[in-house]
């Protein structure tokens, strides 16, 4: 499906075999309904079904061909106009084919074979009924195509939004400030600048890496420390991070990239707005089969009303949910003068990717 036509045209491409199959299915079901509703005047059920199917298949296939052929001009129309155009086309097509069937029934070829009974006796009623039935069925089909199209588009949009959310994990604010720090260090302390560039590269590599669902805690800790080192260059003694993670097994599997965004949040909201800085405390514990990681940062009087970035938390919540189902838990909230985020998830040696 080419882009740009998406907006207006919700019809499937009738030239594809999938759509052709769906088309035949719709036609056969319609034929079945019509035959069941019919009183089988003059002929038996199967004969009736066969002739109705044959007739409807002609209409169905010709209709598909027509829509396939008209696809480009139709796609330029808005939804309402496009739908009206499709209905009109189908109505004309049905009228034409009905008329053809009627005159075929009148022809000497059919009459001589004694098959006249299979054909409609009068043109007018036949034409009007067919067009009416055709319009009803086509409307239903259009509605179905429209709903599935909207549904698919919705899912695509959600996926795109999620990708964007993931890409927004590192704040531009952090990136440009780090660049500025490095620009400064390049003059005053080239060795430190070199280290900062390496740290930044590592951090971005970790952020851009494929979604490895879980990594060892050791790796996760390293990413967060890398981030901390860069922020320390900038914030100096204002930033203190207290790691209380000794009891956590270094080889435990944890969801990748959750500590760094949490630390980033804590620094952005809790440390940077304080003139005197503050301490972020990270505790990691394991009890029984559960790993608990808690990140806390001070909340000061200076509520500069920074635009809350709930993205990171929402993202972590979602990933924990995907990985551990109901056994993964994220809690966050303000308690007195602290903002506390708690993650809890099972300690698993080897996880089956979900």
């Amino acid at each position, binding site marked *: 499906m080419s882009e740009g036509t998406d907006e207006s045209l919700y019809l499937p491409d009738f030239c594809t075999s999938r759509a052709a199959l769906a088309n035949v299915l719709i036609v056969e079901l319609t034929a079945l309904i019509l035959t069941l509703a019919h009183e089988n005047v003059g002929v038996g059920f199967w004969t009736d079904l066969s002739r109705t199917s044959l007739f409807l298949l002609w209409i169905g296939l010709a209709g598909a061909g027509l829509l396939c052929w008209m696809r480009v001009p139709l796609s330029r129309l808005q939804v309402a106009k496009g739908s009206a155009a499709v209905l009109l086309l189908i109505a004309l097509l049905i009228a034409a084919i009905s008329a053809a069937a009627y005159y075929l029934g009148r022809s000497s070829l059919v009459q001589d074979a004694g098959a006249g009974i299979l054909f409609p006796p009068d043109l007018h009623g036949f034409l009007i009924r067919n067009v009416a039935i055709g319009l009803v069925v086509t409307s239903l089909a259009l509605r179905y195509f429209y709903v599935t199209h909207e549904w698919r588009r919705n899912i695509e949009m959600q996926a795109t939004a999620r990708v964007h959310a993931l890409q927004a994990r590192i704040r531009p604010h952090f990136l440009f400030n780090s660049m500025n*720090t490095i620009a400064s260090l390049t003059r005053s302390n080239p060795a430190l600048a070199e280290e900062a560039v390496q740290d930044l590269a590592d951090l971005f590599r970790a952020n851009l890496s494929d979604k490895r669902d879980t990594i060892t805690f050791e790796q996760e800790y390293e990413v967060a420390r890398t981030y901390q080192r860069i922020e320390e260059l900038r914030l100096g003694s204002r930033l203190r991070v207290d790691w209380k993670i000794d009891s956590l097994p270094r080889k435990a599997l944890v969801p990748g990239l959750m500590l760094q965004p949490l630390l980033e949040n804590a620094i952005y909201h809790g440390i940077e707005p304080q*003139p005197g800085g503050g301490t972020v405390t990270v505790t990691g514990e394991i009890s029984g089969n559960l790993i608990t990681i808690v990140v806390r940062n001070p909340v000061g009087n*200076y509520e500069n009303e920074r635009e809350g970035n709930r993205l990171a938390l929402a993202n972590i919540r979602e990933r924990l949910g995907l990985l551990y189902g109901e056994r993964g838990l994220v809690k966050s909230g303000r308690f007195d003068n602290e903002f506390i985020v708690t993650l809890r998830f099972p300690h698993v040696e080897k996880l089956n990717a979900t």
Partner: protein
Amino acid sequence: MRPRVLIVDDEAPARERLRSLLTELDQVDVIGEAVTGEEAVMRAAELAPDVVLLDVRMPGIDGIEAAKHLNALEQPPAVIFTTAFDEYAMKAFDAQAVGYLLKPIRKEKLAAALTHASRLTRPLLQKIAETRSHIAVRYREGLRLIPLEEVQFFFAEQKYTTVKHLKGEDLIEDSLRSLEDEFGSAFVRVHRNALVSVRYLEGIERNSDGQYFVRLRGCEAPLQVSRRMASELRERFRI
């Protein structure tokens, strides 16, 4: 005489870089540095710089509010904002055509900004950001900032406005009208001449003459309330 410049940024590497760029440019004299918005205002009041290079995002009083206070100085300096990335501020600056420098700052751009540095007008600044979080009080020896949450009320007398706060009272130049416009959500006009902090509202009294007074937490003297406001206050704050 060469322009005298004050550098304001909460991050040491950022200040360092600006200083070394300015040294290389050799067209101005750096006369000082400040690491917060408050300090910037104090230092500027004390040193009277010609130009202030002002970081937008700082703890406490941010750059935009600091600029407003700088503007209230006897000799307001020209302000050049610097920012790494602050969508909100950048949008506001763009909207009002206020120049700013993006970090990491390029030397040429810094030189150009210094050449064209000019004062921001007060109305222009007012358009840029939301309300101030502090009230600036001018003294002979400088300037002091009173946090808005410590202000109990503003009182207008002839030409001046008195601000009564937890640590005493001072004269300021803002009119009651402009204060009301700016802080309308946290303050309420109880009388023609008084604007009271909602935070300190305690109760309403009526004396034997039938006049209404408002009682404020931590305030001895009651403030007169107009009759119309008395009932409105009662209803709004359930006092």
